[in-house]
């Protein structure tokens, strides 16, 4: 029997359950978000794009994933 362990994190203000041990790049892939077009803040610190792969997410993390939209 396989066991899935989840952790709770907050993404853009919404509570989400994701697989334990998921990396930031793994999360973006899961959400179908292109890493090259977004900026990510984790617990108020900006995560450099080249560290997305090395960033392991943890229970209780608060993520903001932002991009550019039309504006004046």
């Amino acid at each position: 029997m396989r066991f899935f362990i989840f952790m709770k994190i907050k993404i853009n203000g919404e509570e989400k359950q994701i697989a334990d041990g998921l990396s930031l790049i793994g999360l973006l892939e899961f959400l179908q978000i292109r890493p090259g077009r977004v900026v990510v803040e984790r617990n108020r610190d900006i995560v450099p794009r080249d560290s997305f792969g090395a960033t392991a997410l943890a229970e209780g993390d608060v993520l903001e994933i932002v991009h550019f939209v039309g504006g004046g």
Partner: protein
Amino acid sequence: MEDFFELAGRKYRSRLIVGTGKYKDFAETKRAIEVSGAEIVTVAVRRVNITDPNKENLLDYLDPKRYTILPNTAGCYNADDAVRTCRLAREAGVGKMVKLEVIGDDRTLFPDVPATLDAAKILVKEGFVVLPYITDDPITAQKLEDIGCAAVMPLAAPIGSGLGIRNPYNIRIILEHAKVPVIVDAGVGTASDAAVAMEMGCAGVLMNTAIASAKDPVLMAEAMRQGVEAGRKAYLAGRIPKKLYATASSPLDGILN
């Protein structure tokens, strides 16, 4: 005649800066911006919709190699949020230039001047090229220039109002004292408003709603390009003084009697 406008060491031929909000879709955004001739375009920083991440991104339509992308801090009501937004924008890799706007209230969208000054100090210290949106107040413009902002951007009228320049005398005072480019930002309604700003000697005009919310945004983008160009040329050409009485255009000699 080569006429350039310099910002943070870079030369721009177009003096029209355009926003990318309120368009029907990205295709229309792209067409209007192409026609406007703008080389600098503003964008906003917002959360990605994670339940339905849009596969298309604004930057797929606006090549950052072709355009200088100018992220704004629209929607920020305090200095901390504005600084945070600028840091996020810089991480996107489109440069260090930001349009700083710290909004005072959502009815007028007038800037919160003390908060704008606070944010500008932090951002300049962190190496940002700061273009602040401000009221048409010469004292604030001077303070922001002293802080090290790369330009000052007084409003013509409230954002999206289309009223044109409400206080040309204040803009004139700002222009007389500023050593950085003065860009009229917000409140322009039609091409003549843009021309007026340029005739006064402003370095440029920034607008969004006047183009994007026109019945035909692409045609208005062209009108705005021409308005800005006409106003600039008229400024360089040097207009005649205004006089109360007539001066005949035809010679007075040789009139039949």
